[in-house]
Structure formats: C-alpha cells, structure tokens
C-alpha cells in the first residue's frame, strides 16, 4: 500500500520527556488519527513531521521518496495547522489571505473566500475586518482550517482540529475530511491528532495510538475492530475473565474491558457479553492498558 508518510525510528529527547523510537505509517488515501492522552507526544510528533521542531534521530519518508522537510517542494504538498495560535493575533481574514498567497504557490484566494463563507467567518475581501484575537477559539480554528484547506495540497496535518469546535463544526470538519479525500480519489491523505475520538469516529480510517512517547498500537480501524472485542460481564465472574482481558475495570456488580478476539470463545463460556468495540471504546481500552502497564 502507498504511504503518505513512513516514520522510521524518530526520537526526540527533552529533559523530562522522550519521544520514540516511533515507527509508524500514514497510509496514502485515508484519514489517520493520532490518538492519545494529553502529554503522550502527539504534538511533538506532528511538529517534527511538519518541520516545526527538530528531531534527535530517525527519519520520515514522505510520498514514497522525499525526506527533507525543509525542502519547499515538499512543504508545498503538505497543509499543516497547529492547535496553538497559528497566525499573529492581530491578523484578519484579509491579512491571512495576503500572506498565504505570498507564502505558498498553491493558495487559492477564491476558495479561501468560499470556505470562509461556509465556516460563517465573513468575507476576506470586506472592508471591515475582525482581528483574530477578537474571535472565539472555535472561530480561530475555523479560520486556520479555511486557510489550510484553501491550498491545493496532498496531505493535511492537523493538531487537535476538533477540540475547540462545537458539535456542528465537528460534523462539518468530518465532511471536509471526506470531501478532501474524495476530490482526488486515493491521492490525498489526512493526519490529525485528537484526545477525544468519539466525534471523529466516522471520519477515521487508520489509527495510531500513543502513550508516554511511544506508539502502542496502529492499524486500519476495521482491522482493529476485528482484532479486539469489547467484553462486559457480571462482577461474580470477574476473577475468571480478568486474566483473559487486556484492560479491565469493574466493581462487584459488573466489569468491562477489551480483549483479543482470539479469546472470545473462552470468555463466552464465562457468560460474558461480547461486542465489536467502537473506536472510542477501543481507544479507552488500549490507552487504559498502557496506563496499567506504566503503573507496574
């Protein structure tokens, strides 16, 4: 399968935190979610992949051949948007349009105006303009998204795009992802980070789970849903079921957690309820298991 990015052993050493080694793949033609708790290393990894932060070692290969993120011809193909203040706070839609046009060959001013309208941000050509600092967090994020989507790119890399958006805007964001992928069937990819996957479930094809600076699981969502099962049971049988489960929480009434699908038959003999997990349930299970391991 074609890859948008192949991450080969990237590390980053900080005084109090180490990222990696990270080995991961961002498949071409799909939306990949980077899932993890706060402080798991998602932003650090994204910043390294987009050339905002340096790495200590390792390499990333983009679009099958390119490795130098400082190369303009590579940067032109990637639309990056951070969750922090992405533009100076005294900028307006108009100044953003002007500077994006100067900075990138593939910025489409008309498309930017159209996206601003769709996101209900106003008109970048209007005389009266609002400064970014006057906007709500949600509208700031909408502005950044309009700016990045107005460029004709092949890969979107977005750090926590959904966290400041209201439910309607999240739904629109998911639509934008699918539209972006569909416009050039199979040629475009999306990578986004999130610590709350529930709203993005139906726009996620591939998932990379991170905890404590490490990738702990990755794969296509449909494959992961076959690999793991969601298990519920009565508290009475918890002691029997627990050794077969990867994550486990419970009390004397009931328990729940995830297990490998290969243990389904055994768990069924203990009269447990077994279901296909949602991506949200899977994330909770996988991340909880990582926490349990870290405590040991």
């Amino acid at each position, binding site marked *: 399968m074609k890859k948008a990015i192949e991450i080969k052993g990237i590390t980053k050493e900080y005084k109090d935190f180490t990222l990696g080694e990270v080995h991961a793949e961002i498949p071409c033609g799909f939306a990949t979610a980077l899932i993890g708790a706060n402080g798991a290393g998602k932003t650090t990894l994204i910043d390294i992949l987009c050339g905002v932060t340096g790495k200590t070692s390792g390499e990333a290969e983009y679009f099958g051949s390119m490795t130098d993120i400082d190369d303009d011809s590579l940067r032109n193909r990637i639309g990056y948007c951070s969750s922090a203040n992405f533009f100076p706070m005294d900028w307006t839609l108009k100044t953003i349009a002007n500077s994006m046009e100067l900075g990138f060959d593939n910025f489409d001013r008309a498309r930017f105006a159209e996206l601003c309208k769709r996101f209900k941000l106003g008109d970048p050509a209007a005389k009266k303009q609002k400064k970014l600092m006057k906007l709500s967090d949600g509208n700031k994020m909408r502005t950044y998204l309009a700016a990045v989507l107005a460029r004709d790119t092949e890969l979107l890399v977005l750090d926590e795009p959904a966290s400041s958006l209201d439910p309607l805007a999240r739904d629109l964001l*998911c639509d934008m992802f699918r539209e972006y992928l*569909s416009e050039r069937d199979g040629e475009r990819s999306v990578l986004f980070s999130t610590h709350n996957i529930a709203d993005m479930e139906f726009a996620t094809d591939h998932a990379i789970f991170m905890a404590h600076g490490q990738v702990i699981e990755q794969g296509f969502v449909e494959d992961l849903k076959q690999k793991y099962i969601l298990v519920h049971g009565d508290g009475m049988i918890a002691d029997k079921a627990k050794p077969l489960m990867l994550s486990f929480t419970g009390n004397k009434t009931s328990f729940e957690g995830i297990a490998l699908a290969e243990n389904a038959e055994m768990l069924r003999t203990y009269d447990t309820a077994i279901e296909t997990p949602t991506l949200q349930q899977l994330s909770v299970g996988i991340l909880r298991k990582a926490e349990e391991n870290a405590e040991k």
Partner: protein
Amino acid sequence: MKIYQNSSEPIYKQIAAQIREQILTGKLKAGEALPSIRGLAQDLKISVITTMKAYEELSAEGLVTASKGRGYYVNAQDERMLKEQHMRQLEKNLTDAIYSARIAGVGLDEVQQTLETLWNMEE
C-alpha cells in the same frame, strides 16, 4: 442507501448487503460502476475504510471486480452463482428461524409444520 450507525450489524456489512441486493435483483447491471469508495464515504458520512471493506467483501463473493485505479465494476452474474447467493441468504434466514425456535422451545417437527403452512399460504 440506508445505514444504521448504531446497529450491532457492522456498517460495512449493511452497505455490502444493500449493494448485493441491487446486483442480485438486477438493479445494478453487469459492467456498471459502483460509486467511488471515497465518494460513497462522503455521501454516507462514514469512513473510507468502511466502504472499502464493503466493496472488498462483494469482490470476494465474485459480485464485483476491482479495476486497478478505476474503481469497482459489477460482474456478469451467471445463474449458478446467483442461485448460490440466494441459497446463502436462505440458509442465513433459516438459521435465524432455528435460533428463534430454540429460544421458544419449539421442536423440529413443529418448525417443519409451520414452514409447510407458510409455504402453502404463499402459493
């Protein structure tokens, strides 16, 4: 197309079932293209990988063929295969019926009688 997002039936199976029915009933004809994987995902507001899995399932059943870089096309359906598909559906429905019978404590004799009555009513 109608999708239940919170059903216990996986979404890819729901999609595959509806396209399968359209092919078996002749609504989708041999040589016709299925919607693009990402276009269908966009229309149904679901992930790309889900529609892809649905198409892969139909492809494994021999109902459609992937044409490299150009999407999926409906295969010519030969009668033998059509019958096999219908048999599979029949077996599935009968399995459901057996399951209901077991829960109700109804024996094979009674199930056969019910089947016969229903069969004659349909005719």
